[in-house]
């Protein structure tokens, strides 16, 4: 099996799905000849031509609006937004149109598209190239939200997303694009949406996270394990629909929870996770539900390494709930 980066895995999934189904079409800024500013679409323009790998004018609302129309008509567009930070000009199209089309038309129309966008910090991008605004979308009924944390999942989840008949927001942890490699089968395989994974099992503490926070949590959890705190890490993989069962089972086992996310703490998706646990499993809890998250400020530039959740911070939280 080939060792691929997360970026290569995404590129491979796109290529395979485009070969399989000529209804799959890519559109976005610089996705064509240039192969995307991160090179996620490298080579696709050459193989599939400019009608299927479309360089668009500079207008996110146009990219998403046009993709919605394509999807309603029966294509399977994969619009790219260059950075998640630039998704907001399309916010109206996403929350009022893409998310509600099936509902408001009584199921007569659906919008099978995958909106791919790189998110998150750790690349010295300042507050306009580092945002993790998944919570805006997880609060929007009608959308599915997927966040892979490694190359294998990225490919399998992306293929599932492309074949899904609902609109999917596919968030790519840009910090991990090239920093991790993993085995990725060349043949097609899918990872179903709505199923978490447990990259590390444990009995004492549950750590819940997704995307770029997973390697950080695993590193913290391993350190905790070394110190005799048996720590379980849950990788949600899909935020909506959420795999509540896996979460609650783990919490019921450990009674101690740390939730980790990059976005500003207040109102992040981690708050929802905490609220679910406090609503449905409070009898099992033996410690406060701690959230290690971004600060309630915009993302900084120079001091980003101090801003971001890191293994030390997660490790301290694990210890804290363990010793509570």
């Amino acid at each position, binding site marked *: 099996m080939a060792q691929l980066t997360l970026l290569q895995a995404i590129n491979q999934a796109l290529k395979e799905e485009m070969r399989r189904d000529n209804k799959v079409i890519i559109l976005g800024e610089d996705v064509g000849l240039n192969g995307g500013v991160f090179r996620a679409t490298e080579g696709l323009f050459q193989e599939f031509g400019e009608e299927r790998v479309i360089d668009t004018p500079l*207008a996110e609302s*146009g990219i998403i*609006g046009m993709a919605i*129309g394509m999807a*309603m008509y*029966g294509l399977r567009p994969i619009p790219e937004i260059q950075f998640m930070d630039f998704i907001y000009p399309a916010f109206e199209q996403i929350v*009022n*149109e893409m998310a509600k089309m099936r509902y408001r038309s*009584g199921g*007569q129309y659906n919008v099978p598209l995958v909106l791919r966008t790189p998110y998150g910090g750790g690349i010295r991008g300042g507050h306009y190239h580092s945002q993790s605004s998944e919570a805006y979308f997880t609060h929007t009924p009608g959308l599915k939200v997927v966040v892979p944390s490694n190359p294998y999942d990225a490919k399998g989840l992306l293929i599932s997303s492309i074949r899904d008949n609902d609109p999917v927001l596919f968030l790519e942890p840009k910090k991990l694009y090239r920093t991790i490699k993993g085995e990725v089968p060349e043949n097609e395989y899918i990872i179903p949406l709505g199923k978490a994974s447990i990259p590390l099992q444990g009995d004492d503490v549950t750590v819940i996270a997704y995307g770029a926070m997973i390697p950080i949590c695993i590193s913290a959890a391993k350190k905790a394990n070394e110190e005799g705190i048996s720590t379980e890490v849950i990788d949600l993989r899909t935020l909506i629909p959420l795999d509540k069962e896996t979460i609650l089972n783990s919490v019921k086992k450990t009674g101690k929870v740390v939730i980790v996310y990059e976005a500003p703490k207040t109102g992040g998706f981690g708050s929802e996770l905490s609220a679910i646990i406090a609503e449905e499993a409070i009898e099992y809890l033996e410690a406060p539900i701690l959230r290690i998250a971004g600060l309630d400020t915009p993302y900084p530039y120079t001091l980003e390494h101090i801003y971001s959740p890191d293994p030390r911070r997660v490790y301290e939280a694990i210890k804290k709930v363990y010793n509570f």
Partner: protein
Amino acid sequence: MSTELIKYLDEEGNLINNYKPSLDEKKLRYLYDLMILTREFDDRGLKLQRQGRIGFYIGCKGQEASHIASAFALNDDDWIFPSYREPGILIMRKVPLYKLFCQMIGNEGDPCHGRQMPCHYSHREVNFVSISSPLATQIPHAVGASYAMKYNKEKKVAVTYFGDGSTSEGDFHVALNFAGVYKTPTIFICENNQWAISVPITKQTASESIAIKGLAYGIESFKVDGNDVFAVYEVTKKAIEKARDGGGPTLIENYTYRLGSHSSSDDATRYRSNQEYELWLKKDPIIRFEKYLLSEGIINKDYIDSQKKFAEEEINNAIKQAEKLKNPSLETLFTDVYEDIPSNLKEQMKNLIDEQKRLGESEDNSLAFPL
């Protein structure tokens, strides 16, 4: 490219500018019938609201030529991305009238299960896409769908309707720009009724016309007397043919007038002069067309009376049929959010159904829509 007003039928029902109708008498009569029926439909819609039988109404009085004569130039498999003042297209495409009233009531007969306010129709069987309240959002969709038609090598077009106010939204701009670049088979029809609720077109934009905005996108554009069935039909037809032949998009400004208030919640006398209204009342597209048809002997007074009577009866029956139906089921609160109901919604559905059984149906203390 023309931003001069194109006009073939004057206010007195005379053909001008050497125009000769390309539609035969039968088709002209049919066009007239549709306009009469749409007018009656619209009048009754507003009345139902006034009588408290529906919660809201938004009308198309005065804009019948603009939407009916333009859609008349389409094939049935061309797609419509509508705004909310084009019910005549649904009537033309033969959606059973009672279905439209079911939508207004929001009952179980509404194909959209009572989820949107009145007049937000969606009928896929006639390629009439779902209407959205947020303005201008449908314009990029039309570009996307027509891109797909072109990509599939089908000779179809997508037509989208929107108001003059909606041209101020960013989505108007991005949609036309994309269409210009990709030369999609899209027809953009702006129904310039000169008002966006209380804001007159002079405060909406300083551009000389709406049509001239097409220049910003390299899109051929026309300004048409929107109350003139002939001008509307011919210009749209030409644009559609061009689009089918791979000639790309066209922007058409139908210069018309909103004869009613903005909606059942609005009172246009707060901001609009009676003179202006009276002036435009005289330009009514139906009266003008009627004069022409009468003078040409294509219809006579009896025909008019019988058509009006027919329209009344049709509408009465449709309303009667629609009002028999019940509210949508509780399940419709949960379906169609996703293809399948996800587990969290299944949980919420179970809780809600149990609750309504346990406590009885929730009290309906909703207020009337204020706008």
